[in-house]
């Protein structure tokens, strides 16, 4: 693909010149056009795809990787989606549908069938109503958003005075009638984004509008539910729920009535006089919900509200919340939920936003067109889950050509232990050397967030490759997985020669006459480039890896590293990492 062409296309899209962009794509062979589209960021792909004329979309779609195709198709209204599939060449359509996984295929078929039946009534009326029907299906698109964020950025000042950007310029709007789920790796800035949107924190740049007015100047009616509940232990359940109403100057009787109603709606009648510490986690979060609902917020923000609860309790509470929402028992017009749990996002949300990290930008923003209530066993459910996995696991592959990674001064070491890497490789060997990431996570009972660092470590060391959400073991990985412990250590050591931070440390140690250095030195080195929290993780990881690989020993009393010289390596058993 010729880069100038990609740039030209992107320029046209960013200027909103759709016709010339289509022209450009039409001039290419469909396969080349698809490749060109794949060089763009996913949100741009979506933007473009929503506009593509149906015949053009139909010619290109088969050449896109099937998951992209699947999700891009779903970014259009059902009728248009059906039209595109209809317009595909017979052979291509068969090929495309064949490539889809079983579940995706069934669900697509269902949707197409539904679209087919749904188009009947408008066809009886006038031909133009097809267009109107589409508008009606997505009423939010025309309505003014409740919250609109324009180019918001956030940076924090570090201890040493340097700035670190947590959120890159982001545009975002919250429409009425939707539940939006925000996903992203740990520490990517989800909570920060939530704080900015809710008016709790001011963005460093850009602005947040609430019904068109800057949030600073009006008092938005929002409520927040926190992961840690944030209840006041010295107030009774009732007083906790009443507290926001008291702040509004509501009289005693009215306050009491509304608080009781809110408690009732979350199933906590008769617990008014209890103190939070007498309640179980699930009940505490119910109080948290009651407090939020008592103010009848227009937008309800939730920061990982179910993460601190056990699976069953979370499931229950989620169900209750959805019941209130779907039956419109609460006047809330939009819910914004930050979550770690992909299934939860697909279960609840009408729209999912995935954040990347360092700094956070939107990696994907798409609608989930499944009817509520949703069933996680349903065929249509899985493709979304898998797709989000893929967006989250593919570190910027489509976003920039591979050479771009070299530009980064020091790639971060994934926070994983050598034991974890070995475990993953052994599992892969067991599964014949290749496996779907989602299944790996499932087998290991891990969340993506926990699995990702291990996978990253394995790829960084050249023991595995990840592609399109599949992990594949490499020949060196195979050797490693089959080797005994000393050999593993040697292989690990060799693999680490490609890790810049480790090399930096080794070089520094080699150049000292006594071959020792204080860890503090490397900490300082990293301090200039990374936030404090990351520095600790990096140091911890590099110590773990280096000690496992017998590169150096670490003396915690003096906080110093000592290089293990070639002759020593054999008898340095005591240097093995403490787990």
């Amino acid at each position, binding site marked *: 693909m010729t880069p100038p062409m990609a740039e030209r296309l992107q320029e046209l899209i960013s200027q909103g010149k759709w016709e010339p962009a289509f022209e450009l794509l039409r001039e290419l062979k469909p396969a080349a056009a698809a490749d060109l589209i794949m060089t763009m960021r996913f949100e741009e792909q979506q933007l473009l795809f929503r506009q593509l004329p149906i015949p053009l979309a139909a010619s290109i779609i088969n050449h896109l990787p099937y998951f992209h195709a699947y999700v891009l198709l779903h970014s259009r209204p059902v009728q248009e989606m059906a039209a595109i599939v209809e317009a595909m060449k017979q052979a291509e359509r068969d090929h495309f549908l064949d490539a889809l996984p079983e579940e995706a295929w069934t669900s697509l078929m269902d949707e197409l069938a539904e679209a087919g039946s749904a188009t009947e009534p408008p066809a009886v009326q006038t031909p133009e109503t097809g267009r109107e029907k589409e508008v009606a299906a997505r009423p939010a698109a025309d309505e003014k958003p409740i919250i609109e964020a324009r180019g918001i950025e956030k940076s924090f000042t570090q201890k040493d005075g340097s700035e670190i950007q947590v959120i890159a310029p982001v545009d975002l709007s919250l429409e009425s009638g939707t539940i939006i789920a925000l996903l992203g790796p740990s520490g990517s800035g989800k909570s920060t984004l939530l704080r900015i949107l809710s*008016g*709790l924190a001011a963005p460093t740049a850009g602005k947040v509008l609430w019904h068109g007015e800057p949030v600073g100047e009006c008092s938005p009616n929002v409520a927040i539910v926190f992961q*840690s509940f944030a209840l006041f*232990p010295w107030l009774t359940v009732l007083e906790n729920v009443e507290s926001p109403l*008291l*702040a509004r100057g509501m009289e005693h009787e009215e306050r009491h009535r509304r608080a009781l109603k809110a408690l009732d709606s979350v199933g906590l009648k008769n617990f008014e006089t209890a103190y939070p510490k*007498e309640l179980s986690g699930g009940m505490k979060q119910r109080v948290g919900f009651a407090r939020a609902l008592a103010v009848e917020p227009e937008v309800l923000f939730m920061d990982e509200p179910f993460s601190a609860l056990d699976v069953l309790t979370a499931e229950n509470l989620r169900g209750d919340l959805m019941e209130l929402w779907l039956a419109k028992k609460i006047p809330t017009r939009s819910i914004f939920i930050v979550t770690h749990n992909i299934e939860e996002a697909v279960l609840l949300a009408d729209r999912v936003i995935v954040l990347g990290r360092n700094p956070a930008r939107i990696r994907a923003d798409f609608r989930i067109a499944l009817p509520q209530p949703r069933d996680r066993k349903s065929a249509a459910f899985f493709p979304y889950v898998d797709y989000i996995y893929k967006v989250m696991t593919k570190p910027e592959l489509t976003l920039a050509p591979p050479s771009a990674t070299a530009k980064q001064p020091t790639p971060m070491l994934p926070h994983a232990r050598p034991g974890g890497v070995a475990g993953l490789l052994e599992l892969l060997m067991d599964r014949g050397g290749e496996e779907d990431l989602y299944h790996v996570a499932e087998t290991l009972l891990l969340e993506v967030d926990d699995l990702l660092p291990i996978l990253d470590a394995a790829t960084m060391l050249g023991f595995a490759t990840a592609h399109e959400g599949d992990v594949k073991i490499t020949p060196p990985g195979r050797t490693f997985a089959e080797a005994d412990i000393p050999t593993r250590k040697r292989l690990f050591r060799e693999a680490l020669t490609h890790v810049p931070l480790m090399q930096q440390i080794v070089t520094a140690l080699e150049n000292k006459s006594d071959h020792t250095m204080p860890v503090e030195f490397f900490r300082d080195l990293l301090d200039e480039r990374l936030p404090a929290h990351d520095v600790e993780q990096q140091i911890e990881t590099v110590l773990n890896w280096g000690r496992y690989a017998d590169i150096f020993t670490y003396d915690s009393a003096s906080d110093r590293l000592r290089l293990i010289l070639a002759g020593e390596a054999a008898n340095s058993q005591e240097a093995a990492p403490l787990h």
Partner: protein
Amino acid sequence: MTRSKTSAGVLTWGTIPKRVPSILQDLPIIFAGFALFYALLSMTHYWLAPANAETAIQLRVSALPKYAMFSVLRIAIAYLFSLAFTLVYGYIAAYNARAEKFMIPLLDTLQSIPVLSFLPGVMLSMVALFPTRQLGVELGSILLIFTGQVWNMTFSFYSSLKNIPREMREVAQVYRWSWWQRFTQMELPYAAIGLVWNSMMSVAGGWFFLMACEMFILGNRDLRLPGLGSYLQTAANAGDTRAIVWGLSVMIGIIVLIDQLIWRPVIAWSEKFKFEQVESVESPHSFVLDFLQRSKILPFLARVAVRPVRECLSLYFANRQAAASQNRKPGAIGKWISRALLGAMLAGVAYAFVKMIILLVGLTRAELHGIFVGAGATLLRVAFTLVLAGLWTIPAGVIVGLRPKLSAIAQPLAQIAASVPATALFPIILLVLIRAGGGLGIGSIVLLLLGTQWYILFNVIAGAMAIPTDLKEVCNVFRFNKLERWRELYLPGIFPYLVTGFVTASGGAWNASIIAEYFRFKGHTYTVTGLGSVISDATDTGNYRVLIGATILMAMMVVTINRLLWRRLYALAATRFKLEG
């Protein structure tokens, strides 16, 4: 009453007998109210009496109740001042970033200035304020007690405010709590436990310095106020052992009584402010609190008087907040007033500073020599005391802390022992020492030890109790011997607590040195070389140059030691020696 309503009748009858004792139950509360009223009345009466420089302190036992009452009221009023100061100062320091930058170091410095160094300034200004009334001297004494009580409370409140969890604050912010609601529903409750413990420590400190605060020589004036402290001091001066024993018994009695009637109930009550997510198994218990909660009068008062007022205030501030958020305009006048205040304050500080320099320049070589030699001597004395205290408290504390049954017995005993102010015991100790041929040299160290060892002991016990069980089990698994156990587990485990204990003890020891190194006993003034005796002597002789010079040196030494030694050890404790249970 008809037959059909028998069950209701039984119920009604069942409640009647209960009602009689419930009135009886309330009697003590009513009596307490009257007693307090009478005490305040007689105190005011005495305060407004014409100034009477030389009150003769009578050593009659029958005079003791009155003296005790005066002392208790003095400490109580000083405590109320401290509380008010704490709330205002801590609040401003926590929320005004610009003020915080100088308020906290200032607090740090003030904390390291011994009580007696405040004496001349406080006394002279108070006497000048009310030249003809007893009130002047009396207020001076109260302010002195205040300077001994207030700083740790302020620190505790400030750091509590700073540590309020972010999400709690965000709840208050997102629901736009008014200032008042934040204060009463979040900040005060969150700070309550720290405040209660520090209040106890402060009041104990008040008793410790009571003798110094009620009777002193200021230049050529011999000021004494009727009170337990001056009674004990006079008895010591006269060598009247019987009076000393009587005074001491009354003092200990009062301390135990206050502990039972006030602190235990308050601690038990403040349990509800504990910031924990699950209920702890055993919590402090107080029969007085149970009694008060069962009484009828207090809940009645709460319902009739407190609750409506609270409701009113909450709504008033909430409405004001809502109104304020609508027209958000920075108050220009307020800004100017605060600027003017700041300017005036800076000018005052600058003036005082210049005056002080002028005074200090006048220090003679001999005086300087005395100050520095004294500083060295006190430094050694304090260090020696801390080592001595550590030597017995660390093993004892660990042994007690590791055995839950033993600590259940030993801890309350130690608490009673610790609550007796060492200064009150001092005359007796000195008497014994002088008989045995020793003098203030040993006496001063004994006094410092008595005054400070408890901080270390309690912290070590707490640290040893907090050592996680699984780590103890690991020691068993690895068959560690005694030495290894101490080195690998006990010492690292108690280290953070030990540092806390030593910090408090060291601060207390410096402060106590002014009493320990200079003591009037049987008409004779015993002194040993030290910064404390330099300060006490300078106060007595009215030599302000030396007083200020010595005070500055002491404050500087304490602050420097805090910065160079304790703060580093704290940092070390927070990183290296943190045991995660």
